[in-house]
């Protein structure tokens, strides 16, 4: 039993953070209208970040969902527009799982623009740029052409989303069906929830940092407003929630490889809820610290806040996950109480 991030994982995340912080500045975020949101893809691909979980035989890094979560957290921290999390955490592992190694390799190297959709995420991002969309439902996994599955683009409060609703029944090349599709869809939904949760943790962290910096420089009554306890405690409260959301997310990430399905899904739901609530608290308390400034485009906070709203509904919204957890805890006979958080009989998938 060792619930700490390995040194290699931390180094990987630090490297990603250095790159992302340098390249995806808030100055870039302010240019949403002039950008495809995909300019950094070649660099991200060349760093190997799209193939974190792809086996080394396919040119991947051969790492685990824990590393994917660590990278997703960094992507959230900078509100990265590029679909790094989607490709590295969802598409590539799913294509590998379905036995489409060559395609996975091509996507991981940044050669194929591909979106992914499921009933819990029926929108494709970067809609105008996708060459293909992987549609994953409990009955069928299919690879569809954009002309067959994408509806007209929709505006989102997050200018970087570039969404289009996906027709989940669209014609396409069928990669799996029935039981195999069902299993793949459940797996994908759990992964989507966990990595979105990791991004939300990164976003919450960043919003607390932005508000802290502002509170240390903005003066009223002749002193920085951050020296007032009423202001300090708003940000301390958000930090406390974050401190207890991250471990849940990593616990859930580690469980993605496990075959104890009810527990995997239970943990994914918990992770998504904990991270969503943390990001909500961080955004509400941060805008309060920024005051009127925070209610405008003059402060950078809104990019992070809006991304967190967008992610809150993705891969299962609060109501979905609350209902699922409620069923597990109250009616599902889930083992609860001391000593049940890490079951003795869990086996690893790999």
């Amino acid at each position, binding site marked *: 039993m060792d619930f700490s991030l390995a040194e290699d994982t931390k180094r990987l995340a630090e490297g990603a953070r250095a790159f992302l912080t340098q390249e995806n500045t808030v100055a870039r975020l302010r240019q949403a209208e002039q950008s495809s949101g995909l300019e950094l893809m070649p660099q991200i691909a060349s760093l190997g970040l799209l193939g974190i979980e792809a086996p080394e035989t396919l040119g991947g890094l051969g790492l685990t969902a824990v590393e994917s979560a660590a990278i997703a957290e960094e992507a959230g921290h900078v509100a990265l527009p590029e679909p790094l999390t989607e490709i590295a955490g969802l598409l590539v592992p799913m294509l590998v799982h379905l036995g489409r190694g060559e395609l996975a390799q091509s996507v991981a190297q940044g050669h194929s623009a591909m979106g992914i959709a499921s009933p819990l995420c029926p929108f494709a991002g970067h809609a105008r740029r996708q060459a293909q969309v992987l549609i994953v439902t409990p009955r069928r996994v299919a690879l569809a052409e954009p002309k067959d599955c994408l509806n007209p683009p929709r505006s989102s409060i997050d200018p970087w989303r570039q969404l289009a609703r996906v027709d989940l029944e669209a014609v396409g090349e069928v990669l799996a069906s029935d039981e195999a599709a069902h299993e793949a869809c459940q797996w994908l939904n759990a992964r989507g929830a966990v990595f979105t949760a990791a991004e939300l943790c990164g976003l919450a962290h960043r919003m607390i940092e932005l508000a802290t910096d502002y509170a240390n420089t903005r003066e009223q009554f002749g002193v920085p407003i951050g020296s007032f306890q009423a202001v300090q405690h708003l940000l301390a409260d958000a930090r*406390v929630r974050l401190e207890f959301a991250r471990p849940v997310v990593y616990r859930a990430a580690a469980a993605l490889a496990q075959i104890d399905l009810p527990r995997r899904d239970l943990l994914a739901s918990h992770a998504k809820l904990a991270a969503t609530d943390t990001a909500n608290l961080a955004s509400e308390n941060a805008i309060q610290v920024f005051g009127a400034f925070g209610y405008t485009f003059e402060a950078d906070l809104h990019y992070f806040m809006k991304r967190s709203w967008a992610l809150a509904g993705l891969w299962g919204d609060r109501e979905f996950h609350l209902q699922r957890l409620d069923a597990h805890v109250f009616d599902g006979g889930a083992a609860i109480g001391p000593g049940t958080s890490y079951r003795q009989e869990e086996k690893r998938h790999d």
Partner: protein
Amino acid sequence: MELEYTSAQIEFRQEVRDWLRAHVPTAPLASFDIEEGFNAHREWERILAQGNYGMVTWPTAYGGRGCSLIEWLIFEEEYYAANAPGRVNQNGVFLLGPTLMEYGTEAQKARYLPAIASGDEIWAQAWSEPGAGSDMAAIRTRAKRTDASYVIDGQKIWSSRAVFADWCFCLVRTDPDNSRHRGLSMLLVPLNAAGITIRPIRQLDGDPGFAEIFFDDVHVPEDHLLGPEHGGWQVAMATAGFERGLMLRSPARFQQTAKRLIELCHTHASRLSAETRAGALQAWMDAEAYCHATYMTASRIMRGETLGAETSCNKIFWSELDRTMHRLAMSILGIGAELEENSDWLDGYMFSLAGPIYAGSNEIQRNIIATRVLGLRRG
């Protein structure tokens, strides 16, 4: 990251479970805040020590088992799942013990630790004063150095279990010329020393769980000094770190309460509001989150990392969770909540109200997070 127990850890859990099943008293003990209950709990500490479970992480030389922190968490999980009695010596076991390990001389460790593990010496904490609560650096109780001893004069208050305890670890001012954080020292003081007067204070439940301690020309030998003379603040901060950090409240305690709360929801299912059910679900999630965070912290310590100011997050989280869970239970019990027969939840609710106050009030913890974790300017 490896989230599976080793086979040795699984065996250890089974061994603890079997032992507790054979030894935990079938009827709950009386409160350790009254004399009869205190003695019964001391007897339980001795039984625990005979099983060599007094404090499993301590070295064997001091009455422990040399277990890792993960094994301690396993022990605690089994302990709370078995509804074993509260630890009357928690100040000694969880606070003074680790502090002695860090600051004690070899002689002090050999003298005090085994008696803590065995339950023979029960400790109280003597830090707060009428004029020094959250502002602990305002301590005025004096200890004057004479040839080979310290002479203590002053007054301490809110000392839990000091009415019946044997010893206290006492924060005093040894350098009268230095104010605030400088000039304090930690002294180990037997509560039966000449010149000590103890006045019980009734807590919310009516029992004398607190005491006021008066020191009038109390002599203690110089080797009762723990850590450096005038360096008591750093010793106290280490103790407070253990208190807020890992040891004082293990996750199992709250997971057990959350489980009981869910069971209570089942019992009262026909009249349960959606709000209460949602609250219980959130409480269950938070108890799990506290467990995961603690396993993560324990693993980091085992890798050689040290805890920082982020431990202040723990204390806020568990104390407010505990209060929420008991408030929900009171709501579910409704018209019966006031009755003695429901005193489990009622006593728990009263005690949960103390959580955000003791071990450094939650307001002080939020100040620490703001200034030392986030880097906000000091007011």
